[in-house]
């Protein structure tokens, strides 16, 4: 009898330990960025970066951690905040490191991770960035190179963007064309005096949105001549050619305002009945029967899965002025719209995956309980003393298994959470010299003093991530 008592005690201790571990188990990604986002809401970008540095395990914003798993996402977040702070070199460095890591993660496969995803949680595997994040990574990095007048670096990002766009198009992903990236690539090549490439990218941008701010630059680039680009020709049709700024002695200013924040992913628990209404038709008849049986037994009532929370600042209208003159701004990109659109395509799959994991957990729990009870009973048979303790211990361990696996089922809330909800642009010609540009959005107002030479240009980014 003693060994059996020992077995019971051991099982109780393990159950307790597992329960404790389960409660202290891995939190989702949303917890890792929470402090940073709260600091951004307060307008404290230094604190937001410090919070990310703590998560990255580095002592200063100048450090890059080894990127093995989700550090790439934290670097993307830190990169956007550095961009908003006007620390463009740091932004480029963070974006560059994240870009390289995401490329590696994107091509990595792991049977263990696949199994983990199937049994434990969607965030068991490496992060796979959605199309819009990959494209915006090169877009925002191009912006940070342009902000410091580095056309060489911006051209590299423009080429990387083109490679990624082509790849995403080949995967039939509708998010392949995000106009802002093509607009900035066109600007980069135009200022690099590579007219043909500039026209190609502007044409792509115009397929996404009819950017009015491109009309004058294209009047200058096309000089009244037809091109092979339909969207370009349509925009300048009927307009007189315009001499380029190199000839008029003027300069050009491009203002890019990013504001608000895209909705973050948050974990939710929904009743199994509701989940079945969302994706019930996607389950096989056998799976449906299993779920129905579990519901009838009262064994399960809820499933965990991630959803999108509220965005911030989506409907703000930024204000821009050049001295006393109001600068008309136009929307360059509705990032929140892209995020929601991509999410709606995946939401059903995620709910389905959560139900599948629920079934896997229940099966594992039943298997552990059965195997334990059978093993103990086999031992007791020797002495012809079956008292039902084996089933109790089996149930206990089965419960422990289910509990642990449930606790590990953290909804995959990983995303680039510091992307602006919207990005607006203004572009204008100015006389060479010094200019004061005042930008205002989301309660923040800043004046930038910009010096431009004849034939020169400047790009002024202003990001308010609150």
């Amino acid at each position, binding site marked *: 009898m003693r*060994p*059996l008592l*020992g*077995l019971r005690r*051991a*099982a109780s201790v*393990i159950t307790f*330990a*597992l329960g404790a*571990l389960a409660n202290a*188990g*891995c939190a989702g990604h949303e917890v890792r960025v929470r402090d940073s986002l709260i600091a951004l809401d307060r307008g404290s970008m230094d604190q937001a970066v410090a919070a990310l540095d703590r998560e990255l395990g580095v002592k200063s914003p100048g450090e890059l951690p*080894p990127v*093995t*798993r989700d550090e790439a996402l934290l670097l993307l977040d830190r990169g956007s905040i550095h961009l908003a702070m006007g620390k463009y070199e740091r932004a480029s460095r963070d974006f*560059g490191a994240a870009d*390289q890591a995401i*490329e*590696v993660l994107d*091509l*990595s*496969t792991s049977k*263990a991770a696949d199994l*983990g995803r199937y049994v*434990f949680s969607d965030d*068991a595997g490496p992060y796979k960035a959605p199309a819009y994040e990959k494209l915006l990574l090169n877009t925002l990095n191009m912006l940070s190179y342009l902000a410091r*007048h580095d056309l*060489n*670096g911006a*051209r*590299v990002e423009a*080429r*990387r963007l083109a*490679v*990624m766009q*082509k*790849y995403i198009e*080949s*995967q039939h992903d509708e998010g392949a064309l995000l106009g802002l990236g093509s607009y900035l690539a066109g600007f980069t090549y135009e200022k690099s005096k590579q007219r043909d490439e500039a026209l190609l990218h502007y044409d792509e941008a115009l397929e996404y949105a009819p950017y009015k701010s491109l009309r004058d630059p294209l009047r200058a680039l096309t000089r009244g001549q037809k091109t092979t680009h339909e969207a370009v020709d349509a925009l300048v049709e009927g307009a007189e050619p315009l001499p380029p700024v190199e000839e008029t002695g003027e300069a050009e200013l491009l203002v890019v305002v990013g504001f608000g924040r895209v909705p973050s992913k948050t974990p939710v628990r929904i009743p199994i009945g509701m989940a079945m209404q969302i994706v019930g038709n996607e389950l096989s008849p056998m799976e449906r029967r299993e779920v129905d049986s579990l519901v009838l037994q009262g064994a399960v009532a809820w499933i965990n899965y991630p959803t999108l929370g509220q965005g911030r600042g989506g409907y703000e209208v930024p204000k821009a002025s050049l001295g006393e003159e109001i600068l008309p701004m136009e929307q360059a990109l509705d990032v929140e719209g892209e995020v929601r659109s991509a999410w709606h395509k995946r939401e059903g799959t995620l709910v389905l995956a959560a139900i599948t994991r629920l079934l896997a957990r229940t099966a594992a729990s039943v298997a*552990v309980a059965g195997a*334990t009870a059978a*093993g*103990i009973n*086999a*031992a*007791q048979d*020797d002495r012809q003393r079956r008292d039902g303790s084996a089933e109790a211990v089996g149930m206990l*361990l089965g419960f*422990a*298994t289910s509990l*642990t*696996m449930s606790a*590990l089922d953290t909804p995959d809330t990983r995303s680039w959470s510091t992307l602006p909800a919207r990005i607006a642009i203004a572009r204008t010609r100015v006389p060479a010299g010094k200019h004061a540009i005042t930008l205002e959005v989301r309660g923040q107002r800043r004046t930038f003093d910009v010096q431009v*030479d004849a*034939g*020169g240009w400047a790009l002024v980014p202003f990001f308010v991530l609150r």
Partner: protein
Amino acid sequence: MKTARLLPLVPALAFAMLAPLAAGCSSDPVFVRGSEVKGLDDPPMSTGIDKRDMEQLLHENMKHLVASPLAKAWADAGDKPTLAIFPMLNETSQHVDSQLQAVLSDAETFMVNSQLVTVVSRERQNQMIAEVERQNGGQFDPNHAAQYGRQLGAKYYMTGKVYTSDERTAGGRRVQYFMFMQVIETETSAVRWQNKAAFTKALLNQD
């Protein structure tokens, strides 16, 4: 006792359930010297340009230059004409500007040691470029290379461009590099020597 034999199953079971919790743990990286780890320079660690690629590029290009009629003419004349070495244009999809600078420095060292030409000092060259390009922030403009060469009094200048053919598929990313190096006669803008070196870097899914 069979019951006693079952006891070891309990920790095994616990281990099986706890294993995923430990899956997130990883070991800390350590810094090493090349001399401590045999073959440290061998494995590629990115799709950028590394030391081995630079050595290959330089070896191929300089070997070709030394065997060219231009080098033979320099050697025969023995007058060591002045050569300026200008930045190489990065037309790739990778941020490899600093590596290209290193390639140029290696080329400069090679040309100095070859005793075939007199190489213009990099400092003087940068001053000249900054003076000509004052309005563009002092950045090198390849379109003005001949002008810099003339103002430096260089009879020849060496320059080049690096291009990539970059492709991404579901299974990998391949970057093919093509490096063109040229020696141009400043007075006539005639290309007196040109060579192409190529190599490929890739990130592949091994499944």
